[in-house]
């Protein structure tokens, strides 16, 4: 999938980008992007990273904080440390225990109206429904062995090198998920 040429963009922890980022390679965010991030492969928001008001890629992984629309044309994963305040559009969603969403989850293949055209349209593959509370989100085996502070992108790269596919999501959710996270969802001061 991604990284087949071994290139990527990495926004460091002490870097702020204000504006639009368009990439044909993975974008890994340890810092902050205020604007739109679109990749034709993947966007990975690492712990401590902040993005918004829009992220779009075939695969979006949030271990940090995302505000606004999170559009995963194939898949969105919110890890144990991930926080999303806004709408998640994805045919497949993984929410690990500890991860949080405040906002809508849309899994019927529709995208926000203003979604750019440069990324393939999501196929509507979600047909099953399941309980949506994070406690029921089954943790993929790969995630439970992940080192506590290791960047998501590092384990992802290793999985790619070992030619193992990421764990398939256990559930599909149709409709709305509303989790009251109170103060917890607020971004940390950069």
């Amino acid at each position, binding site marked *: 999938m991604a990284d087949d040429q071994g290139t990527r*963009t*990495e926004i460091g922890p002490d*870097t*702020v980008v*204000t*504006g639009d980022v368009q990439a044909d390679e993975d974008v890994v965010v340890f810092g902050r992007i205020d604007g739109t991030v679109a990749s034709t492969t993947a966007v990975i928001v690492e712990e401590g990273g902040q993005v918004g008001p829009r992220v779009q890629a075939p695969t979006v992984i949030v271990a940090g904080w995302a505000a606004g629309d999170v559009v995963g044309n194939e898949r969105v994963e919110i890890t144990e440390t991930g926080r999303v305040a806004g709408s998640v559009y994805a045919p497949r969603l993984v929410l690990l225990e500890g991860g949080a969403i405040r906002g809508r989850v849309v899994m019927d293949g529709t995208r926000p109206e203003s979604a750019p055209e440069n990324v393939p349209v999501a196929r509507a593959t979600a047909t099953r429904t399941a309980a949506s509370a994070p406690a029921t989100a089954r943790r993929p085996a790969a995630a439970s062995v992940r080192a506590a502070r290791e960047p998501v992108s590092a384990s992802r790269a290793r999985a790619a090198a070992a030619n193992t596919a990421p764990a398939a999501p256990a559930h599909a959710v149709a409709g709305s998920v509303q989790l009251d996270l109170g103060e917890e969802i607020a971004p940390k001061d950069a």
Partner: protein
Amino acid sequence: MAETTIGPRTRIQGRVTGRDVLVVDGEIHGTVEMDAPIRVQHEGRLEAEVQGPEVAIGGTITGHVVGLKKVEILPGAKMIGDVRTPRILISDGAVFRGRVDMDVGEG
């Protein structure tokens, strides 16, 4: 020191600021203002106002460059625009069109 890398297949429109070393293999249109060294690699392209303590140009910059300590224009570089810095190195094989202003204090 942490690093920010703009990959060869990435284009940024806007403003990039911060305290990380910035390495550009891709494209930035707008403003770049870092408190750490900036390096534009051979494939990198900036159409931007650029400021950093040290700016090393191996690719293409169209715009003004301020190097508070130093600016290096490396072989194969194409620099179109004015440069303001107390120290400047222009390598054999670099293309530079613009003015040089070396009348600034040490950053």
